[in-house]
């Protein structure tokens, strides 16, 4: 029996395999983690970890990763689409492995559900949310609404209760009901179990950083990425 393929994940802070990964793909894939020690979701915070990304990718390749995903949406979108692409190129160039970022993953996922006009709910402060708006616009989407929770310290997003998060996200969507998809941005949010209920409530596909970055990552390994029960896109085989 061959060993399951391995996805290497460069994560902002905690090098623990996220629960979402184990819930979505309980078998057939291994997850390897390297943390870069991000402290805050601010441009200064992102700058402070930039030099650690490529070495982390190389460490993952050395440990047997067969594809690399840079997790943490804002760390890759905060300087725009070209910068995001340059991060992917750097990782790919340093490791020789297929690579992606969480920002690329959400764009792919939005395109996969045919989204054109999006409502965006984020964990970030106003400045970082504005940069996400710019990134999505550059990527070809019309952002009808974008609102953030104003969180800066890493770790706080994971402490938001599901009810609070659902209320916040639906509130953002209500300000732009003409949106044809809803994006929840921040890998720290625990959204996996919320995707299907939110889709029922809002009536549009919901794309969320962590689940859909995992989807994009395992697809680089040749898996379908399907995780039925967790919303429109993840239910596709």
């Amino acid at each position, binding site marked *: 029996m061959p060993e399951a*393929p391995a996805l290497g994940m460069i994560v902002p802070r905690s090098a623990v395999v996220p629960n979402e990964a184990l819930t979505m793909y309980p078998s*057939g894939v291994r997850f390897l983690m390297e943390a870069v020690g991000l402290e805050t979701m601010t441009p200064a915070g992102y700058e402070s970890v930039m030099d650690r990304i490529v070495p982390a990718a190389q460490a993952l390749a050395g440990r047997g990763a067969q594809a690399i995903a840079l997790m943490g949406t804002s760390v890759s979108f905060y300087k725009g689409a070209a910068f995001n692409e340059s991060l*992917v190129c750097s990782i*790919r160039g340093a490791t020789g492995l297929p690579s992606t970022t969480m920002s690329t993953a959400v764009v*792919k996922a939005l395109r996969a559900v045919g989204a054109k006009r999006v409502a965006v709910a984020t964990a970030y402060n106003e400045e970082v949310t504005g940069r996400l708006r710019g990134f999505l616009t550059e990527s070809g989407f019309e952002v009808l609404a974008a609102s953030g929770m104003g969180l800066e310290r890493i770790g706080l997003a994971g402490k938001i209760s599901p009810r609070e998060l659902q209320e916040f996200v639906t509130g953002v969507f209500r300000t732009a009901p003409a949106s044809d998809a809803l994006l929840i941005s921040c890998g720290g949010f625990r959204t996996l179990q919320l995707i299907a209920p939110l889709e029922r409530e809002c009536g549009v596909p919901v794309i969320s950083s962590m689940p859909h970055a995992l989807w994009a990552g395992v697809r680089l390994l040749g898996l379908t990425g399907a995780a039925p029960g967790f919303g429109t896109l993840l239910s596709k085989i």
Partner: protein
Amino acid sequence: MGDAVLEILADIAILDDDLDFRNYLEDLLKDENMYAVRAFAQSAELFAGCEERLPDIVLLDMKMGDVTGDRVLEQLLARWPGLCVIVITGYPSLEDMRATFKLKVFDYLAKPFSLVQLRQVLKNAVGAFGLGRTTQDRLRERLGHSIKMLRVARDWSLKDLATQTRLSVSQISAIERGANLPSIESFLAIARAFDKKPSEILASIEF
């Protein structure tokens, strides 16, 4: 620059709708400095690219959103039956793919694959399809073969063709074996003997 034509080993077209994987393959192959590489996200773009310039090798991802890879494969091989297609497929379904397509495609690469595996499959394809030779080599061999086929189809001997073209039997023989390229005058005479335009013969061998 001297007379030698500096040539790539093979012209490769990639079809993969996953941006990251497409870029990965394209970069990887370009870095090898041995291949001309074009990458396409959609099957319609690939077909247009093939019409413009037929690649030597197509790397075809089997899992695409809009159109399934097997449909694209079917269309590719119907349009260009001799095309070298290497299928890239997902980790769990390799055996299924082998069973389904073993007669139609040159080889398979299962994701995740290593650079070593990719290099080996391409090396095999280059060898099997006689790629990587100079344009003159390929023209000489294909043209010779084509002339021989046209002669045999008419039930002509070498001497018959030599008479028709006013070339010697040994000249015709050397051209058919791919040892020599015919001169322009000789080629015109050969095409006339077969009642064809030279451009028709060249087009039939994809030159």
